[in-house]
């Protein structure tokens, strides 16, 4: 049963991964990537990595890919120049892909990573929580790397703000404080004018 599910998910995963790079519409490509992440999460569930599987869906599908989808839909990218040379470079690309695949297959094949070399892990009991175990190890043995990872996020925030927050004279940014503080006299100017004679009958009727 498990191996049937595994092959089913793997087939979907490989198929959607191929589709990501081959479909013409970038929105479909993003959606296929979502499918690929989803099936990866399913395979991780089969490996008893429930926490990581859920995080994959929450973080990648829920946040990153949705953002991607927005970017792809909002930016009006002209795809024709991007696709130029696709056919021309295809033979070289296929050759490189085949060579790389063969090399990796030689090394990562079952003769090195088979069940004889690395025995199948024993399934844990139903009440075993790998979330708890991950948390335990993350905050004890790996506290130092964990803190550095947090720092990387801080640097990312600083970098993003320093690169995007700048006052250009041509941008029409809003200043809510000024907007709230505004007085009637700043916006409306009362002008005294002499009354004019009515010009048209229709305007006179409506008023």
């Amino acid at each position, binding site marked *: 049963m498990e191996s049937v599910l595994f092959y089913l998910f793997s087939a979907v995963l490989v198929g959607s991964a191929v589709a990501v790079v081959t479909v013409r519409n970038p929105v479909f490509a993003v959606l296929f990537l979502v499918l690929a992440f989803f099936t990866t999460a399913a395979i991780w569930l089969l490996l008893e990595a429930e926490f990581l599987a859920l995080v994959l869906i929450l973080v990648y599908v829920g946040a990153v890919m949705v953002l991607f989808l927005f970017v792809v839909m909002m930016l009006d990218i002209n795809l024709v120049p991007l696709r130029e040379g696709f056919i021309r470079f295809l033979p070289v690309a296929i050759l490189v892909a085949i060579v790389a695949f063969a090399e*990796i297959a030689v090394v990562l094949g079952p003769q090195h990573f088979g069940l004889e070399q690395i025995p199948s892990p024993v399934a844990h009991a139903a009440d075993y929580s790998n979330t708890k175990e991950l948390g335990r190890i993350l905050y004890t043995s790996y506290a*130092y790397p964990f803190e*550095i990872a947090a720092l990387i996020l801080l640097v*990312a925030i600083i970098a993003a703000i320093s690169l995007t927050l*700048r006052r250009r004279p041509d941008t029409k940014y809003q200043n809510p404080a000024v907007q709230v503080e505004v007085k009637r006299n700043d916006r409306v100017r009362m002008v005294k004018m002499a009354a004019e004679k009515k010009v048209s009958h229709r305007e006179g009727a409506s008023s």
Partner: protein
Amino acid sequence: MNFVMPTFLPALPEIFVLTMACAVLIADVYKSEKNPFITYHLSLVTLLGAAVLTVMMHDAEPVITFGGSFINDSMAALLKVFIYLVTAVVFLYSRDYLIQRGLFKGEFLILGLFAVLGMMVMVSAYNMVTVYLGLELMSLSLYAMVAMHRDSSVASEAAMKYFILGAVASGFLLYGMSLIYGATGQLGLTEIASYIKASSGHDLILVLGVSFVVVALAFKLGAVPFHMWIPDVYHGAPTPITLFIGSAPKIAALAMVLRLLSDGLGGLHGEWQGMLILLTVLSVTLGNVVAIAQKNIKRMLAYSTIAHVGFIFMGVLAGSPAGNAGAMFYIITYAIMALGGFGMILLLSRAGFEADNIEDFKGLAKRNPWFAFMMLIVMFSMAGVPPTVGFYAKLSVLSAVIDAGYVWVAAYAVLFSVVGAFYYLRVIKFMYFDDQDDNTPIESSPDVRAVMSANALAILLLGIFPGTLMGMCASAASVAH
């Protein structure tokens, strides 16, 4: 599960730099118009304090803490002190240039300090996760610093290239690390080393992992054929950032090479030695030959970096403590030389004028004989002319590689460094034998002048008395083994 609280004391310099970087971050928001240099002074104090703490925390015996993620040994202390020193000089040289161009913002200092923190983590890393995270912390800060000059399209292009290629290199590093983890089941460098020692067999997975790691290291240091980003980034980035990228991070990158290849994968020396020989030969050739054709001095120095990286890999490939010590000596002195070279470009630049063409050095000897002499020392040292330190650095690496039995590599490298002498000497020819086009007097603050003079004289002094620094490198390399 038994968990013993680790001792935090060996990591005191890191904790101090982090705290101070956050303090600078806050001070930058609240600083008043009256005192715009408070962040700058705070940053220098941070680096000074970190140096003091590093020397205080230094112990002859290596201290390992945080469950094997962190090591404080002689190599870490030595390289960290030089990282602080180089960064402090970078901040000083950059100040006037950045003020003139309206780029002197707190972010430069804050990102610089975080990059220093990343380098410290790399230098002290003792398992693969920490090596990678330190590298990312440093690189992310550097990418943002390159992009900081938003109005310059060249800088944005350089930042984009640097970011994408750097991300690819990190991917290679991670893949290599995951293969090594898959083969050994260990993340700690000592555990990996002892696993390799125990299994004498020829492990194909490990070798594939090692080759990915070597590719990533070559990428980060900029060895041929993974050098493409160096000239564009050096040329496109604002000169102070080029100065920073070309100096301190190289020291950290060498530390990463020594930790991974020598400490962790030293048992596979036979496997990675061939790869390093190839990198050395290609880098020395391409760096020296292509530099001849450059008209922009930043590009020229970028290609010269590639050639120097070839020499550094030559020290590492010997695989002996003497070779590692030579590589360490070389990278430290190279960082000091790069400070002098790029610092001189900053010194000659003024508002609205970049002195980044070799032609801009024409007649410098008549404009300002003292700085021309300083540049002469820097160029002689990069070319490897005695009695400057460049000669001694090359000598120590070459003797290590000859002891390892690779006389032909040494002979080849010497041959191409003779070729390379041409473009360094051409700068000197421009300075001393050509007429000046530009008569503007050089304006700079007295502190910059003093440090620049000290910088060049240090190159001369270290060349005449290399013993102290070489001794420190030798003891650091022997303890690391």
